[in-house]
């Protein structure tokens, strides 16, 4: 009964939304501000990837927020799952999962550096290719995930993660504030923009994206490690 009602409700919503969606012509150029971005990204910022220049520069403030969201998620998960971090740090999680296949373990060893390299490539070339700090960071975190799921005893040092997180975050926000100190806007570019499609182009955009890459990688790795290491904690007394 309840399901029928829900389906009816969704049918109504679906009807109205479809009505709206199909009113919007598909594939037509309706850009307004984007035109400016497509013009200014290659010409003013010398950044090939317009998405990147939007993400890091035009709308860099969003991205700072986004990085904060990740930072928050990591903090949140730590806060939600662990009462005393001391118990956890530097302690092998010893998850209850069975051993992974030896084959998978060996391949993980080999693949890990390659994945990290790929991640680094992706975030270093964020302004030239469809990559970026987030994508690169996710790739690196995936590498750690690979190790985490294949090696039961593998654990990431949260202390070093903390350092990376902090330094990367501070780099991002600090570059923003530096712009302010140099008499420009927050997050405004104060470096030479270089030649488009060179690695060293786009001013602060590249630096920020590298910082974002580190931040995302460390944040996500921390989250994954926290989530996968929970079984130790469950033996801890639930009482407050």
């Amino acid at each position: 009964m309840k399901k029928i009602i829900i389906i009816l409700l969704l049918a109504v919503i679906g009807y109205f939304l479809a009505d709206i969606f199909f009113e919007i012509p598909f594939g037509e150029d309706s850009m307004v501000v984007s035109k400016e971005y497509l013009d200014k990204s290659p010409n003013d910022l010398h950044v090939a990837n317009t998405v990147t220049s939007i993400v890091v520069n035009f709308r860099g403030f969003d991205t700072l927020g986004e990085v904060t969201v990740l930072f928050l998620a990591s903090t949140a998960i730590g806060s939600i799952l662990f009462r005393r971090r001391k118990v956890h740090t530097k302690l092998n999680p010893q998850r209850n999962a069975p051993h992974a296949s030896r084959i998978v373990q060996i391949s993980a060893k080999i693949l890990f550096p390659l994945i990290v390299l790929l991640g680094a490539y992706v975030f270093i070339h964020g302004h030239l290719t469809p990559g970026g700090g987030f994508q690169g960071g996710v790739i690196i975190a995936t590498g750690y995930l690979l190790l985490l799921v294949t090696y039961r005893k593998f654990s990431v040092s949260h202390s070093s993660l903390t350092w990376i997180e902090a330094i990367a975050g501070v780099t991002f926000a600090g570059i923003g504030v530096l712009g302010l100190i140099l008499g420009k806007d927050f997050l405004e570019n104060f470096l030479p923009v270089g030649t488009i499609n060179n690695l060293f182009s786009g001013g602060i955009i590249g630096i920020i994206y590298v910082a974002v890459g580190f931040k995302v990688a460390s944040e996500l790795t921390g989250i994954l490690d926290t989530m996968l290491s929970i079984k130790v904690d469950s033996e801890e007394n639930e009482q407050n």
Partner: protein
Amino acid sequence: MVVANPILYVALPLLVAFLLPLFGKIHKELIRVVPGLLFMFLIFNTVVLFSEVTSTGKPIITQIAGWAPPIGINLVFSAFSGFIAGIISIMGLLVWVYSYKFKKVEFDNSLKYFVLIMLVTAGSIGVVLTGDIFNLFVFLEIVALSSYPLVAFYRGRDGAEASFKYLIVGAFASIAILLGIVLIYSQLGTLNMAEISLRIGEMPEKIKITAFILLFLGFGIEAEMFPLNGWAPDAYSQAPGPVGAVFASMTAKAGIYTIIRLVFTLFDIDAGYQLLLGMGIITLVVSEGIALRQEKLKRMLAFSSLGQMGLLMIAFGINTKAAVVAGMFILFNHAVIKSLLFFSGSYLVYNSENKNIKDLFGFGKKLPLTAFLFGLGAFAIVGLPPLSGFWAKLSLLMASADSNLIALIALILIVSVVEIVYYFRVVNGLYFKKYTGEFEPHKPSWNASLVMLILAAVIVTVGLYPDLIYNYFVNAADALMDKANYIQNVLPSNFVGLN
């Protein structure tokens, strides 16, 4: 080098939040000290910026990354948004002082706690200041994501349950908001709020209304509008005491701000005001009525908070200058008084397992100061003169009278009686029921007492001399209601004509 800048409201907390773990490695105490310094700076920032806004009479528009709006994101520090930002930052400092001794022994917990408090503050201020609708969405998410862990901060309680409910409903909110933004962007090609406001008429009627509905829904969830506020009582009641105050004074403020901006600035839909008014009335009546039936103190406070949000929606829904001024007053009061109630209330039920109202019977003698301050808060929130709550209620009633909403006046007053019933039940119990001795009360620490006394002093001072801050409300109302001025300040140049 600029000393005060709206951007610092957001940038500095983020910077400090990122750095705080490192500070903690240098010295443990820094974890608790640094956030306080930050909040103090934010207040300094508020003072400087506010005096500038007051003296020039123009809002401060900050562009980010060197791009003028609508290309870049901008912050608008006006008499309206700046005032709310100021309230939030001051409440941030008070929450900090209140929780200074919070879990002193547990390093990691206090680190996370202060990080979350700083970010919820920064997020709320960001919501209020930003001039870009997607950026607003991002800040709302920051607020949400720092609220979830705060709700679930204590393990002995059902915080995780509350937090999960909040998360589900909050996720719906963000989806609705995002969908609304998508629809607006697809039609106008811009995310700048001033430009949206300027060109909203270009949107086809159907899409415009759907976008409005979606945003109204999403912001309504954040603003704790009935029936979208199922998460709120749980979250308020399970969070640590100061966090309840954070919700009342920061996140709820950010929520109501969004809905106000939506109706007042972004869209040109007149029915929006009526919708807001109607939903406010429903929220007020239902929440206050349910508060009447609560056995747990914090849950009662939570429903009372929802009622106050309803009152705010009513005030802004009336949409006259007098009503908006009243709304600003209520907004201010709600932040101050509800915080006092949460602060003192959480000490009253500190050691109680179930946090029932009947657990605190007889505490008037056990915790004289705390009980007194709770009583003062109760007196203030129901609008007894000469406390600040009275003036807000009076101005709202007068504004309703001016708009010929006589039934509304009666309704608000009837609801106020209900409010009196449940608040005075607690106050009576505090003083005149027997202490059952089931648990020993926990004496507030000096810093908590200090905060509560400051809030009480504000309540009394404003009650005795409302004109102290009344003009700020008037200015804020002016700034909010002058849409053309907002657009002109954000988009001064030829960009107005861009199509």
